[in-house]
């Protein structure tokens, strides 16, 4: 009861109201914590997961062997893989159609046939990708990994489906 009275005395009330004013004026003279994004950038964490991209070997050939693990494990079904054998050694023998399918005209062709299976198309719908990092975690070849480039925005939904060349470029 006594404390109640004290709480309600005018002096106490105005003192507590002044404490609030003091706090705000103190912050007024502090340096803002803002960073001006398009001009300045904050260092983001090393582990930060933005969107996946495909890794290539030193010679430019794909690491991905189309094992479908990432497609299986992806919770949001964002990854779509079609498998096929990409034979880097005999590029000249491929028809135009095949080249298109394998996106080879965009890829730097390797110099040898590594004899491995490769995806003929590898698509990730970035508007479905939830950046969970499961594909990177499960990939046995370290072919897919999460990038840290978050600056992505689209004007329409078709742009958002990244094919193989975009996935490699977006590294």
């Amino acid at each position: 009861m006594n404390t109640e009275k004290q709480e309600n005395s005018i002096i106490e009330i105005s003192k507590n109201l002044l404490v609030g004013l003091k706090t705000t004026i103190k912050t007024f003279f502090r340096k803002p914590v803002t960073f001006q994004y398009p001009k300045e950038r904050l260092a983001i964490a090393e582990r930060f997961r933005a969107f996946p991209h495909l890794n290539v070997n030193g010679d430019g050939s794909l690491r991905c062997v189309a094992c479908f693990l990432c497609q299986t494990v992806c919770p949001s079904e964002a990854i779509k893989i079609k498998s096929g054998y990409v034979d880097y050694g005999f590029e000249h023998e491929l028809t135009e159609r095949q080249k298109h399918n394998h996106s080879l005209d965009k890829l730097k062709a390797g110099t040898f046939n590594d004899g491995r299976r490769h995806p003929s198309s590898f698509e990730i719908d970035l508007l479905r990708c939830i950046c969970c990092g499961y594909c990177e975690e499960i990939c046995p070849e370290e072919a897919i990994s999460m990038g840290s480039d978050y600056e992505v925005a689209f004007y329409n939904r078709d742009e958002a489906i990244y094919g193989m060349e975009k996935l490699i470029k977006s590294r």
Partner: protein
Amino acid sequence: MGIEEHLGDNIITTSLDKIVSWGRKWSIWPATFGLACCAIEMMTVASSRYDFDRLGLIFRSSPRQADLIIVSGRVSYKMAPMVKRVYDQMPNPKWVIAMGDCASSGGLFNVYSIVQGVDRIIPVDVYIPGCPPRPEALIYGITKLQEKIEKGTLKHEDPPQILR
């Protein structure tokens, strides 16, 4: 204001276009309209560290005073009419940002109760992927929207079509 309909195409209108686009570009007021996870990140953009007041954005709680609606989160079939209603209540010119996967395409939730992309209900100008996108990504999306507004003219163009 309705003036723009009476003006023809001449040098005055083109320079007016530039001025108006400039004004619109730096004064995009989003409606306070949050749905799910991305709404929290949207609030974060207003917070001290990201502070989108820098770019001239302030939240208006009434859609009548807003230029932009940031659809931040999954839109359920129960909610869809409200999203549409808020959009209809906004005065022209108005823009829509689909923030995050769920709003853009349904994202993770390809299920019975979620609309697969808010663009089935209202036209979307900018899609921002991510689940949820970083606040920086939202600001990046807003700068993309600004680029789009800058190219716009005084006469209000038809918004992008609704995907069906």
